[in-house]
């Protein structure tokens, strides 16, 4: 694998992802509106939910709007990852995935490039949301917007790798409703995105345990801490470990020799 060759491939993949994303105006629009709806309507009803306790990394009492913003940023990454994995299933059905994977570069590299491209394309919207959230008085320190970048990239990669795994298992686009019901919603709701652990523990210890083990929680906390200039080591390790595991599993899934693909008759 020559470097310039590899970079050209990455560039091509990135360009394709970008074009595709920019052409889906409706998707862009809804990706931006979704967290804002949560912030204006959902958060408004819960304003005083957190008035009772200080949860790190916050050093004082915060309104619910402030608490929920990192979770909503992670939600944007999650939905983006799932939309991207849906696109991959589509690519498989249309045959362009085969085209990509037959390029004279290692399979892992091509999939990693696809993953990275998808995350990079998704980030500007997350930043736009974080800046718009300032109008809701969610004002983390300015340097927090810099510190949150690696956290967003890592979380995006982890969720993207998860989407890659899902796309390697899921055979048809019709299955995607099932993915929404059984993957995205539980992952989002049973996490620290909407409520801190202590609040979930009040609802039920099982839910709190699930949330604590949910890798999406780690992504949320990594983003939350970074946004307030703190470094959550445990969350970072969990996110990195999950990234590696999901990516390796997706590798297996996409391997025509060994993976689920071959068992299904290698329709790609």
């Amino acid at each position, binding site marked *: 694998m020559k470097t310039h060759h590899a970079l050209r491939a990455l560039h091509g993949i990135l360009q394709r992802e970008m074009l595709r994303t920019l052409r889906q105006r409706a998707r862009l629009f809804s990706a931006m509106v979704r967290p804002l709806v949560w912030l204006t309507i959902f958060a408004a009803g819960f304003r*005083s939910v957190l*008035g*009772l306790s*200080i949860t790190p990394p916050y050093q*004082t*009492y915060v*309104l619910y709007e402030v608490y929920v913003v990192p979770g909503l940023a992670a939600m944007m990454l999650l939905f983006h990852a799932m939309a991207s994995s849906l696109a991959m299933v589509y690519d498989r059905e249309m045959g362009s995935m085969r085209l990509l994977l037959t390029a004279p570069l290692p399979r892992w590299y091509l999939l990693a490039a696809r993953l990275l491209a998808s995350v990079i394309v998704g980030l500007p919207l997350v930043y736009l949301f974080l800046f718009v959230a300032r109008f809701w008085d969610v*004002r983390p320190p300015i340097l927090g917007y810099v*510190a949150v970048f690696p956290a967003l990239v890592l979380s995006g990669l982890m969720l993207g790798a998860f989407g890659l795994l899902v796309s390697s298992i899921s055979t048809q686009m019709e299955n995607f409703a099932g993915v929404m019901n059984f993957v995205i919603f539980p992952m989002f709701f049973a996490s620290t995105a909407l409520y801190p652990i202590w609040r979930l523990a009040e609802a039920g210890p099982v839910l709190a345990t699930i949330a604590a083990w949910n890798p999406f929680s780690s992504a949320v906390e990594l983003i939350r801490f970074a946004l307030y200039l703190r*470094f959550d080591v445990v969350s970072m390790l969990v996110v990195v470990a999950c990234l590696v595991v999901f990516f390796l599993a997706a590798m297996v899934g996409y391997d025509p020799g060994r993976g689920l693909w071959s068992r299904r008759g290698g329709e790609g």
Partner: protein
Amino acid sequence: MQVLIALVLSMLMARSASAETIYVSNEQDNTVAVVDGATMTLQDTIEVGRRPRGMALSIDKKTLFVAEGDDNRIDMIDLARRQVVGRLPSGADPEFFVVHPDGKRLFVANENDNLVSVVDIAAAKVVGTVDVGVEPEGIAVSPDGRTVACTSETTSMVHLIDAATLELIDNLLIDTRPRAAAFSPDGKQLWVSSEIRGTATVFDAATRAQTGKIEFEVPGIRREGVQAVGIVMSRDGANAYVALGPANRIAEVDTKTLAVRRLYLVGQRPWHVALSDDQKRLISANGNSGDISFIDLENQEVVKSLPVGRGPWSVVIGP
């Protein structure tokens, strides 16, 4: 990454660093907490008498007076040694008091005796009393030292006392359960808060006519939950800060328009507030959550809430 963050944090801290010490009376712990203003950390706790509430610095800022409601006295803390070094009589159940600008006398509200006691600091003696309404609570002295204002919670009045003759000049009716009184720095206005009605009434100090009233509202909190208690005014007289008790908020009020500019979310049930010497920082003592909240007025945000003990009641900022 960690190094970078540590560097950034230390820069931020250095920027807001101020050589101030914050003193907080813990009503239920019988202590005064000592907090370092630069690092915003608890440094010390000083044991005092029972139920410490009102506090004030001496004019030379070397001594802190602490009213001990259940011990019927005022303790004097030497701030250099951080020790109680003397006691003053105060009359029964002192809740709140002020140091007269002459530096020689304290005016103390005696909650149970319906009196204002005048204490001579040097002689350690009560040198006079003034009869006021039922349950005197808040007390303030005009910047020129001529007038002392005392609120009485049950009578719902503010009583104006001539500081020289100790005669009552006037009684003004206030909304239910008045708490704190504060003169504007130019001495032209008198502000009085009403706990039950959640209002602050503004009077012209010279004519004693009501010139305005602020009705506090906090979105999402029912009216009964918004109660006005402690008041502090900025040195330039442009802003007043009012603690809203169970609403867990501090209101920033424009003293010209009487509009509430901003509400800061602090700990539970803030009683009293204090402004730093540079007027850039506001600190609230939050009675129910046992902490104090630091508000950065330049960036208009609450920076930190620090646990200090049980039942923080009043806060004083010293050198």
